């Protein structure tokens, strides 16, 4: 088989990528004409073929990895040479090619994308039935899968960025799929703009990497990565003053005593982190994800649960060897992750829309993943990506099934998703119920489900890990010792809340009595009478709206089969990487599989706390696992108590006792409003100011005033045109006077150059018959009493010193001009970040 597809020209990648692209193309252009059945066939076939090819590729990769004895093996395929760019540190040109590669990390992602993608396509073929935009939907969905695959399989940063942008675009198109409703379009725009802010960070990171490591593909960056932490001013990024400028004169108060610099690794890490927070919905750019629930549920499942939002984690994992170079950035990632997990969990507790709960749950789980990679547990974080794809997709698809059932009865969009109007659905939606329960069990960490293994591994590593700089000689930032335990307890609190709200959703949706019998129905009385016994759009018979009507129904097999598959995986996929040293390390297949990818990163940079004490770490394993178990137990027990035993009374009383706080949390802590009031208001006022400036300054002053000046000066100048030659001659004399003054007066101009090593050279401008006299210490007495011909002066200044040099210039006419030159050497920069 390898003879057909050699390891370094693996053209099967073209099939994996090409099939979704073909599906998007065909469905997009001819979809409407071909009809729904053909569109469905094209889309599903494309995904199935892609998945099969991905499986084949994965098997071949495993073969190759085994053959190479677990080295970092990549199946690469170069599609074509794209372009070259200059600007690297060595001055060479950096090639950017359309080159794809499958290695251990991207192989797993590829399988998730195509596999879960196929299941969701199957689900959507039934969910979106009857929608007028059916063909458009599948075109976008296939295009999304293509872009995501480009992102994951890319061998260099620019190509990854192409995929990154592509998934952002498809996310926008799919969120605003029902664009007739302005709110949906607004949600799509919000997603795109928040992503764009992150993209700016990613671009800056890309530029910095290209400059410092002289390369843009993974191998090259790894090779040149040590340039990012070299000492020396050329390898540090000046934060203040920007770009190592000097503020003199009026702006002197801005000049700091010691310039503030960060290492290039920190700058790159922070820039890339901004990109990842945008794509993976972390603080501060998570605000688009809850709004994105305006899109169809399969979109939420595929994009906002399983694949697109994991792109940020993927990037961090891919560039792990860059991120570990800066322990500061790793700490920031972990803090961002933990705080987002907690924040989103608190919001999810009070939400009433089932999709919103799941959206905040996604943000929270992504926070866990960030926490995992931030403390150096790359495999654990990535494993959580893997398991999260299954159980979150299952939860979303299950929610979609529930909404489908509710919508058949309640035609109002908002009410159909309100969990307060649901209840007891397990009677009528058995398959949905079982799979939803399985996925809930996984997410809350029921022992031995997939979520249990992945989440507990993260919690354990958060406590025991200690990230340091891999280059011990670098004086770099050392995270304080209390960070680990602090993050652990925050994460445990978030896990408790997770299990609470997920159990709440599950109980309120599937247990108890169905509360939606009469919702919406009295309001439909008028329309039904107007229709005079017409059919409603589900083809059911005309019913009596004053009484409870027919009950909700289970969904078609296209929707339940994916649910079952995903439910199975969410229960049992955990055994791919069971934790605990009691099951020996060799029994952690996922860790073993991903080891070559992260070896470089973790080898020197990720140690155990307490001075790399491995025995202590092993000792802590059982207590920390117990904490994790307690989080699950307390959360779910509390939910059971409140919602099953007490029928929701305690929480209602709590909400009444603190209505302000309740409203605040229900309003998502008013973060959106805060952004509106600060950032967006600033942009709006900038726009208003620009409008005012345009009207008054540009139109009024620049346009009208300049024309007035031109007219006036024309009138004035016309007075000179008397026609008499002597007047013209007199004007010439005035001109000659100016020129003569310029030549007769001496000019003391100079240039100041910094020749490195604390040396400065002051060069005076030459002139006819000029003699120079320097005073290099600024005390008023010149160095030599007579005017000499040497026009340069060399100075040596220690850091922090400044001196005022006086220059006197005498020209051939004996006229002297003096100039004072202020030369300052700034202090040496300090920073440990």
């Amino acid at each position, binding site marked *: 088989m390898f003879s057909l597809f050699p390891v370094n020209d693996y053209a099967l990648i073209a099939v994996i990528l090409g099939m979704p692209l073909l599906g998007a193309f065909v469905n997009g252009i001819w979809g409407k004409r071909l009809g729904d059945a053909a569109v469905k066939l094209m889309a599903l076939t494309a995904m199935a073929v892609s998945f099969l090819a991905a499986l084949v590729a994965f098997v071949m990769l495993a073969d190759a990895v085994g053959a190479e004895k677990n080295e970092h093996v990549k199946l690469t395929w170069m599609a074509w040479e794209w372009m070259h760019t200059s600007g690297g540190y060595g001055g060479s040109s950096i090639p950017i090619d359309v080159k794809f590669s499958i290695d251990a990390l991207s192989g797993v992602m590829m399988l998730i994308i195509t596999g879960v993608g196929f299941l969701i396509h199957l689900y959507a073929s039934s969910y979106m039935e009857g929608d007028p935009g059916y063909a458009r939907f599948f075109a976008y969905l296939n295009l999304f899968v293509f872009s995501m695959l480009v992102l994951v399989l890319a061998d260099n940063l620019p190509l990854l960025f192409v995929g990154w942008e592509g998934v952002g675009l498809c996310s926008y198109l799919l969120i605003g799929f029902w664009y007739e409703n302005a709110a949906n379009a607004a949600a799509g725009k919000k997603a795109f703009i928040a992503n764009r802010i992150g993209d700016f960070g990613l671009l800056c990171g890309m530029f910095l990497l290209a400059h410092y490591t002289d390369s843009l593909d993974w191998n090259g960056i790894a090779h040149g990565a040590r340039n990012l932490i070299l000492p020396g001013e050329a390898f540090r990024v000046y934060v203040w003053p920007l770009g190592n400028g000097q503020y003199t004169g009026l702006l002197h108060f801005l000049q700091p005593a010691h310039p503030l610099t960060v290492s290039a690794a920190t700058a790159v890490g922070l820039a890339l982190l901004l990109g990842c927070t945008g794509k993976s919905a972390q603080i501060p750019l998570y605000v688009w994800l809850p709004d994105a629930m305006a899109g169809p549920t399969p979109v939420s499942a595929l994009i906002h649960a399983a694949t697109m939002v994991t792109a940020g984690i993927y990037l961090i994992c891919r560039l792990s060897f860059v991120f570990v170079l800066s322990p500061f950035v790793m700490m920031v990632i972990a803090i961002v992750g933990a705080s987002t997990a907690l924040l989103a969990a608190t919001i999810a507790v009070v939400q009433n829309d089932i999709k919103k709960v799941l959206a905040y749950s996604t943000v929270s789980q992504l926070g866990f993943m960030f926490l995992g990679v931030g403390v150096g547990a790359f495999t654990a974080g990535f494993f959580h990506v893997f398991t999260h794809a299954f159980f979150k997709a299952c939860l979303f698809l299950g929610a979609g099934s529930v909404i489908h059932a509710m919508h058949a009865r309640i035609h109002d969009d908002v009410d159909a998703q309100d969990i307060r109007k649901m209840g007891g659905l397990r009677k009528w939606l058995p398959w949905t119920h079982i799979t939803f329960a399985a996925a809930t069990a996984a997410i809350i960490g029921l022992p031995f489900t997939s979520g249990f293994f992945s989440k507990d591994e993260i919690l354990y590593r958060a406590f025991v890990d200690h990230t340091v700089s891999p280059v011990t000689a670098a004086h770099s930032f050392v995270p304080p010792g209390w960070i680990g335990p602090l993050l652990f307890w925050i994460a445990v609190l978030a896990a408790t809340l997770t299990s609470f709200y997920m159990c709440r959703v599950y109980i309120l949706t599937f247990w108890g009595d169905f509360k939606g019998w009469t919702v919406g129905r009295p309001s439909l009385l008028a329309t039904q009478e107007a229709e005079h016994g017409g059919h409603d759009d589900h083809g059911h018979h005309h019913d009596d709206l004053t009484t409870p009507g027919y009950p909700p129904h289970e969904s078609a097999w296209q929707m339940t089969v994916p649910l079952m598959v995903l439910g199975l995986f969410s229960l049992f996929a955990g055994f791919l990487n069971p934790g605990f040293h009691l099951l020996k390390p060799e029994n952690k297949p996922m860790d073993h599989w991903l080891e070559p990818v992260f070896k470089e990163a973790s080898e020197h940079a990720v140690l155990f706390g307490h001075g790399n004490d491995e025995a202590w770490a092993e000792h802590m394993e059982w207590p920390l696992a117990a904490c994790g178990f307690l989080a699950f137990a307390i959360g779910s027990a509390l939910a059971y108590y409140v919602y099953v035993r007490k029928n929701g009374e305690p929480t209602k009383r709590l909400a009444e006792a603190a209505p302000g706080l309740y409203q605040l949390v229900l309003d998502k802590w008013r973060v959106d409003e805060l952004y509106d009031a600060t950032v967006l208001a600033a942009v709006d006022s900038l726009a208003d100011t620009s409008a005012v400036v345009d009207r008054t300054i540009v139109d009024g002053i620049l346009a009208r005033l300049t024309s007035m000046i031109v007219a006036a000066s024309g009138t004035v100048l016309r007075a000179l045109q*008397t026609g*008499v030659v*002597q*007047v013209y*001659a*007199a004007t010439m*004399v*005035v001109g*000659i*006077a100016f020129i*003569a003054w310029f030549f*007769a007066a001496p000019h003391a101009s100079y240039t100041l150059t910094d020749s490195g090593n604390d040396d400065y050279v002051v060069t005076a401008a030459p002139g006819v018959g000029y003699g120079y006299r320097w005073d290099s210490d600024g005390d008023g007495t010149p160095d030599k009493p007579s005017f000499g011909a040497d026009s340069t002066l060399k100075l040596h200044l220690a850091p922090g010193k400044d001196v005022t040099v006086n220059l006197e210039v005498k020209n*051939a*006419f*004996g006229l002297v001009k003096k100039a004072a030159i202020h030369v300052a050497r700034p202090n040496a920069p300090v920073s440990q970040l």
Partner: protein
Amino acid sequence: MTLGALYFYACAALALAGALSVVIAKSPIRGAMGLLLLILSIAGLFLALHAQFLAAIQLIVYAGAIVVLFLFVIMLLGPSASTPHDRRGIFARTLGGGLFGLLGLGSIWAVVRASTGHMSMRLPEPAYGGIDAFGSVLFADALVPFELSSALLMVAVVGALAVARGRQGLASPSKGESDIIRESREEGP
């Protein structure tokens, strides 16, 4: 004061007097006479500077041809050659003249201040400035400018003829021309 110095100051004084009378004199005939005086003084100064041939040329061409030409034209114009003294355009004239004067005097002062002493005036060989040496150098090194200047004189003759001829080749203007001009003047610009 040596003879040479006396000679120089005398010639200088005469030259300045001549120049001043050109500028100040009311009637142009007086000005032309002042010009003649200037020419003669300059020729005398040339003699002091060992430029004998040039002094002769100066006398022949300048005094003998140019000043004579001036006199011809003044006499041709007759009484209209002199213009009344009024204050029209006094501002531009004062400004131009005053500024120029200031500039000139300022630069003279600057040069005098910066002068480092005496420029060496060693004696040249006797053939210097004589007609032999001048002629040799004129036809050896400056042959091309010499030929070109003869072409220039040819052009000047043709040009002068063309300009002074007028429309119908008459010495005095016809009625029609000056009428046209007067009418256009009255209409305004």
